[in-house]
């Protein structure tokens, strides 16, 4: 028989009620691409700072419209500014897209597991991003760049749809200009003005400059892209234990109570979204799990 936790020992602390959003004020909305925007927020009310670990996400609530999970795309070293980058595709993100400086959003979080960048000390670090999957990786890129000396080679392989879909263009340019970062961008299709790579992001893996036996890989993008990416990384000699992926599932609560984000036996919201590839490898190839 299941034994119940000691009910009396659990105190209701309404400030820590994980179901209540905190008000955050919009400071800036920046359109990254035709359908993707970055929103910068600052805490309002009696919350002053918002700390998080790279890879974590928030539940973002638009008054009367709804609430959805969005990964945090800002710099963890700047807890006074909360940054989210998302595509305007559903009712909540479309409503966000119409909001302006000064408007209030509700935020719950941060939730979920972070990218285990601490484990990459002294190793090469490879980031593989697909599409909007670059957004949840940006905080860990900031962190790695800030503590560049802790790592060996640092490589970002980023694939997206077309040249006009490239996110964080200015930042990528700045990083590309550094001698200690290897930034490769590829697109699925391009017209003749594009001087960069054309082809899927997995094509970049075989030639990327890193030592597969001493590498941690962080992968984020559509599930199909992550499956093929991990396959290529594995072919290159990266151990499955050293590959981390970030999963997406339907979420209503983000705290393991609503059941929606189950993926086999794990809850993507509290056991993920970042998983060691070996942990979920078998489930990724099962249909409709």
């Amino acid at each position, binding site marked *: 028989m299941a034994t119940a936790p000691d009910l009396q020992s659990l105190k209701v602390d309404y400030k820590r009620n994980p179901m209540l959003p905190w008000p955050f004020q919009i400071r800036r909305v920046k359109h990254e691409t035709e*359908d993707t925007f970055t929103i910068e927020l600052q805490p309002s009310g009696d919350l002053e700072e918002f700390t998080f670990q790279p890879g974590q996400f928030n539940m973002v609530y638009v008054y009367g419209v709804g609430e959805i999970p969005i990964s945090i795309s800002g710099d963890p070293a700047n807890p006074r500014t909360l940054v989210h980058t998302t595509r305007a*595709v559903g009712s909540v993100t479309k409503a966000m897209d119409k909001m302006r400086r000064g408007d209030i959003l509700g935020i719950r979080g941060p939730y979920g597991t972070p990218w285990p960048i601490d484990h990459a000390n002294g190793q090469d670090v490879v980031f593989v991003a*697909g*599409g*909007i999957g670059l957004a949840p990786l940006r905080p860990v890129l900031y962190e790695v760049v800030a503590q560049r000396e802790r790592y060996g080679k640092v490589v970002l392989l980023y*694939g*997206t*749809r077309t040249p006009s*879909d490239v996110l964080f263009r200015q930042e990528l340019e700045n990083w590309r200009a550094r001698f200690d970062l290897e930034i490769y961008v*590829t697109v*699925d*299709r*391009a*017209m*003749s003005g*594009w*001087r*960069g*790579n*054309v*082809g*899927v992001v*997995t*094509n970049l893996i075989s*030639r990327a400059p890193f030592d597969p036996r001493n590498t941690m890989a962080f992968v984020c*993008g*559509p599930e*199909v*892209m992550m499956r*093929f990416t991990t396959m290529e990384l594995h072919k290159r000699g990266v151990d499955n234990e050293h590959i981390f992926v970030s999963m997406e599932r339907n979420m209503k609560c983000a705290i393991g109570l609503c059941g929606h984000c189950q993926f086999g036996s794990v809850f993507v919201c509290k056991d993920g979204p970042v998983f060691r590839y070996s942990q979920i490898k078998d489930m990724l190839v099962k249909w409709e799990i």
Partner: protein
Amino acid sequence: MEDLKKILTEHPFFKGLDEEHFALIVGCASNVRIDAGKMILREGEEANHFYLIRSGKVTLQLMTPNKGPVIIETLDEGDILGWSWLVPPYTWHFDAKALELTRMIALDGKCLRNKCENDHHLGYELLKRFADIMMKRLESTRLQLLDIYGDRS
């Protein structure tokens, strides 16, 4: 020539090829240098070579009447360009253009395919290697077809 041989020996494409066949290949090889912006091969032209890219960047592209050239894929250092020399009617199906100054080793396909007809062992060895490249390109193309990043199409 010694320089060419060294490069070919080290290239994974030729790995495991026996001495005799390898000598044949080296005999068909020559250095090529293409300036940025110059066409390497054009759709419809006779396909008599394949290329091993040593440095630079090459675009495979297709002309469309209303959009101009669409880039299908880019190839870089270490990639193999061209397999139409292997399959009748031996004409190129795409355009290839050097995006940057590109250095390549050109292999005479016309000479090789005659040799392959006479020596099926060599033919099989080469086909196996091209099959691998074709499979990878096909897999990439399938992923591109999925259009996994967008829903605007």
